[in-house]
């Protein structure tokens, strides 16, 4: 019982499923709560549902908290994978391209730059790629090679965004 009362922390990427132990028909629900219940399918995230119901994220999160309190829904997953971090393949390609331009020091420069950006290869968000490319470009002395590198990376970015 203690576990049930424990506050569930979740974000907009959380996915909920209907509780197997309690049915919505057993409790009184507000219309907004019903609307949320009808959308919960074990796949849609809180954000998906708030978009579908044209709610603000805060409002949706509040409703989810109410439904958790009423034991009608259970947190299924809160996958950080939904955060869409930069895939490892991208860093491999980036390292290869940088190596062509500045030589074998490229992996070290790349690691240093990522560290300087206060992030890691596993948790770097796609919107930070241009910043990373710009910082790496600063390490290329030859201006022609710098533009060439940026050109290649820009083409890659177009494919990603």
């Amino acid at each position, binding site marked *: 019982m203690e576990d049930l009362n424990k506050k569930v922390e979740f974000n907009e990427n959380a996915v909920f499923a209907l509780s197997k132990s309690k049915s919505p028909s057993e409790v009184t629900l507000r219309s907004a709560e019903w609307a949320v219940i009808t959308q919960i399918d074990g796949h849609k995230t809180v954000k998906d549902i708030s978009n579908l119901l044209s709610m603000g994220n805060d409002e949706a999160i509040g409703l989810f908290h109410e439904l958790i309190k009423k034991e009608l829904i259970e947190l299924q997953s809160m996958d950080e994978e939904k955060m869409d971090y930069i895939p490892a393949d991208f860093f491999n390609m980036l390292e290869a391209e940088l190596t062509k331009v500045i030589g074998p020091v490229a992996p070290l420069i790349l690691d240093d730059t990522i560290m300087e950006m206060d992030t890691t290869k596993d948790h770097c968000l796609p919107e930070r790629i*241009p910043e990373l490319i*710009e910082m790496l*470009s600063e390490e290329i002395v030859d201006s022609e090679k710098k533009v060439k590198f*940026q*050109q290649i990376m820009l083409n890659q970015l177009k494919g990603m965004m």
Partner: protein
Amino acid sequence: MSQRWLQEIVNLDGVEGVFIASNRAKVIDKIGLDLKDSQLEALSLRILRIIAGYHIKSQKVNEVEFYWQNLYVIGKVASEFILVTFCKTPKVLSLLRITLNVTMANILEDKKFIKVIKDHVADRVFSLEKGEIDESEKNLISKLK
């Protein structure tokens, strides 16, 4: 001619418009801008003056960035023209700077564009780049009178 290059810049989030001006501040091409050519020319002239100021101090400047009428302005300078971009926010600055660098390189490789821009650079009859006036040039000057 240079529209496809300029379009790539305008396609970026937050970019309001972009234009190319000769190094005599004449507008050559523009896209996505609701401003009169005279305004753009005045702005180009200001950018060129800033660049010239640095040049006098023997400092090489390729880019100037400043706020103008609530817009963030980036002026990139090549030897024969300037590329000026207006953005609502400098939020996408890194991506924009990379795109501008690549666009500049593409424009400089566009022979048709370079031919057009060279016609705007200066009246070549009057340009004396060597710093000294040779006999043929003296003849040319004498004909002007």
